[in-house]
């Protein structure tokens, strides 16, 4: 396998691994902040102990999230050299904001939250707990602005003098930070974290109830977890709907792959699993119109007319235009003649939106791995709905005081914890594998985004990271299980 494949595998693994820890960070942050707020308002020591227990688990998880976050940041440069040059100008502002606003907020207030119980006032401590979670959430926004731009590169123009995409005005910057793809991704990712955090708390509490231990702690934790998780579930569904519409508009191939839709059409049906379809449902989801046109993989390959009446060229045509842009770029860079440059610039500007297609070898290169995306999409939705149902039932059980008799629900809640992780990973696969081969949609395919490394070098770091990640995961799970096993009354150093 070549360096492109190894670079992709390494980055995919790092990102997926990072995404194991981030959702729980975002979700638990909400849960424990709510619990500590109740403590400060009611001045009830019970809630302090409860919040402290979840903070203890948060800290174990947070450490690995931080460790893997820095790897991602470095890998942009180490493994995706061309990419980091191409996106550097656009990433600049969001990254500066993320660094200055979010990273330091998280780092500073995490230390206060963790160590400060007897050092600062309860209100200062509460503010620190909230600010740790808010910092993580702000961080998520800015990195998803960057990610959103890669999926839908708005607000920038290609500058042949510097050979990169650049932002040129305040309006452009506004377009970048309000990119609909970024906004819906942010809402979807963060609130899916709430679901993960919520079901984690509900599941762990369910285990205590089954074991008949720490019952009051478990009941009250479960209430907070279920509310946060359910709020998350609702928001995930709404933002997921928006994500579908955006995919249809900006990344129709991703949607076609997620649906396994070879040939599209008006009033397209939604496939629940192969063989079971809901008529017109896909058109409704994708276009909010029962007769809207949804292109299939073949339509995209061969060209089609979209819902606004615009003719979308075939991939072969896009490749030809992309090649023209690249050839003109070579002429532009190679000449000092103003007239030649001006002419070349015209050709570049006319074809630049398809520039990335000029790097493709054959039209079929634009098709992502359909099976993987198709099934991930189904697992994500299926498990997501199941978790939402369990959270709702947990809330009903608490309200009707049925926790003691609905043992099956307690078991279901425990089983839902790993399912939440699978759901999150599937979501990541749909979003990121579904947009292959593009690092920047239409502009930069993966095979051009790399660094000039040997496959052996990347392979080596890949296996080193595999070993490190596996080690950390095993340790984290062992420590978590031990901490949960000991329960909320044990001091942290005795875990």
């Amino acid at each position, binding site marked *: 396998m070549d360096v492109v494949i190894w670079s992709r595998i390494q980055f995919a693994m790092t990102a997926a691994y990072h995404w194991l820890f981030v959702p729980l960070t975002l979700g638990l942050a909400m849960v424990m902040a709510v619990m500590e707020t109740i403590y400060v308002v009611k001045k009830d020591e019970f809630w302090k102990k409860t919040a402290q227990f979840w903070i203890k688990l948060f800290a174990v998880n947070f450490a690995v999230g931080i460790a893997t976050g820095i790897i991602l940041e470095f890998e942009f440069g180490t493994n995706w050299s061309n990419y*980091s040059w191409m996106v550097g100008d656009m990433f600049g502002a969001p990254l500066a904001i993320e660094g200055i606003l979010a990273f330091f907020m998280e780092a500073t207030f995490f230390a*206060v939250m963790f160590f400060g119980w007897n050092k600062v006032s309860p209100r200062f401590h509460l503010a620190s707990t909230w600010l740790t979670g808010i910092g993580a959430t702000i961080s998520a926004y800015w990195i998803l602005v960057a990610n959103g731009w890669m999926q839908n590169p708005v607000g920038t123009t290609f500058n042949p003098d510097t050979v990169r995409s650049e932002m040129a005005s305040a309006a452009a910057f506004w377009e970048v930070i309000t990119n609909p793809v970024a906004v819906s991704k942010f809402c979807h990712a963060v609130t899916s974290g709430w679901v993960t955090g919520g079901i984690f708390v509900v599941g762990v509490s369910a285990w205590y109830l089954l074991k008949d231990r720490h019952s009051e702690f478990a009941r009250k934790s479960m209430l907070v977890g279920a509310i946060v998780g359910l709020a998350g579930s609702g928001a995930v569904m709404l933002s997921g709907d928006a994500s579908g519409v955006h995919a249809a508009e900006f990344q129709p191939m991703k949607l076609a792959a997620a649906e396994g839709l070879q040939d599209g059409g008006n009033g397209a049906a939604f496939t629940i699993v192969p063989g079971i379809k809901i008529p017109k449902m896909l058109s409704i989801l994708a276009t909010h119109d029962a007769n809207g046109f949804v292109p299939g993989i073949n339509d995209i390959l061969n060209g089609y007319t979209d819902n606004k009446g615009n003719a979308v060229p075939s991939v072969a045509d896009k490749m030809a235009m992309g090649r023209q842009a690249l050839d003109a770029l070579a002429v532009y860079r190679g000449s000092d003649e103003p007239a030649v440059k001006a002419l070349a610039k015209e050709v570049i500007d006319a074809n630049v939106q398809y520039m990335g297609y000029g790097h493709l070898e054959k039209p079929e290169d634009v098709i992502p791995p359909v099976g993987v995306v198709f099934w991930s999409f189904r697992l994500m939705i299926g498990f997501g709905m199941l978790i939402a149902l369990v959270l709702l039932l947990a809330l009903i059980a608490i309200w009707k005081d049925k926790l003691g008799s609905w043992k099956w629900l307690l078991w279901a809640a425990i089983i839902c914890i790993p399912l939440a992780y699978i759901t999150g990973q599937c979501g990541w696969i749909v979003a990121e594998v579904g947009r292959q081969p593009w690092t920047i949609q239409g502009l930069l395919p993966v095979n051009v985004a790399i660094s000039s490394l040997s496959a052996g070098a990347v392979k080596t770091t890949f296996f080193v990271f595999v070993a490190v990640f596996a080690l950390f995961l095993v340790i984290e799970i062992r420590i978590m299980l031990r901490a949960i096993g000991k329960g909320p009354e044990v001091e942290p150093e005795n875990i």
Partner: protein
Amino acid sequence: MTYEFLQNYWWVLIALLGGLLVALMFVQGANLHLGNRALTDTQKRMVLNSTGRKWELTFTTLVTFGGAFFASFPLFYSTSFGGAYWVWVLLLITFVFQAVAYEFQNKKGNLLGVKGFRVALMVNGLLAPFLVGTAVGTFFTGSDFTVNKIAIADPSAPVISTWGNGWHGLEALGQYHAVLLGCTLMMLAAILGALYVLNNVDDDAIHAQMRRTVRMSIIPFLFFFLSWTVILLVSRGYAVDPAGVVSLEPFKYWHNLIAMPAVLVMLLAGVLLVLASLWLGAFSQSRKGIWFAMPGTVLVVMAVFFLAGFNGTAYYPSCTDLQSSLTIRNSSSSYFTLKVMSWVSLLIPFVVTYIAFAWHAMDRKKITADEIEGTEHKY
């Protein structure tokens, strides 16, 4: 605001972040004492918990330093990170282990045991400053790379920045001048760490050990630092003319120092502050050496970055192809991006204020053995 002004401004911020990063490497230096046999286990845990409240600040500054370089001078990021691959990967791995070592080490079931994670922290304590120092050392010695932007139109070899050898950065370990800076930083981190613990922890035995560390570090530190500085000032440097053409100029960095008196003053002031901190730590009863050492370090590091990048100098020179060298002008983000980032940077004083506030609130009580043996949250 002109484009040049914004580029210079961001170089100043990069230098400031670099200075803060090095100053905050007291965390790395202090962690070396986790292997100090003269300390009891409780004393080691006092050191661990003392750095444990600050490590995220150092870590975050590293992340922000990298992020700021990516954002303001992306060509450096794509050239150096993708090129000097192994240096950055090594640095990364030591920090990855550091990030989990605090939380994991005293928990049962952590597989590597207390010792394993302490070794990880000590490896980070030695390697992180050494690698950062050596990497910055190549700002003056040059590296083996070429930059060719039109490569992106060539499907067979599309990468813009390519490294000239298979060592991918490890060759810097063979450049004694760069290595001297690495060694300087390693010793400096050890000194900063000792001065920090001296200030932050209440324990006589620990204090004695820290003062001993400072005393023992003075001579090697000054040897490395002065050798590096003298060699720098007599070396050829990479000059860039207003048209952007790079050439080798004898005594370039000496010329830079003379041409920029403010940098000379910064450098001297910084060195004096560090010397004062050495005296306070080694030969007096004062525990306040760290308050001199940190600002001193920031000033010296900033002066070093200014020598590398200002006064018509290529800050990341290529010794293979002079014209591929990176300068503040040819490697930066666009005018508009730098402008937006500059507006955002006005928030920095606010961020520094709340960090100082939180830090002050947490450090009002020094770390004592009682706290480590008590029931409070700790590592």
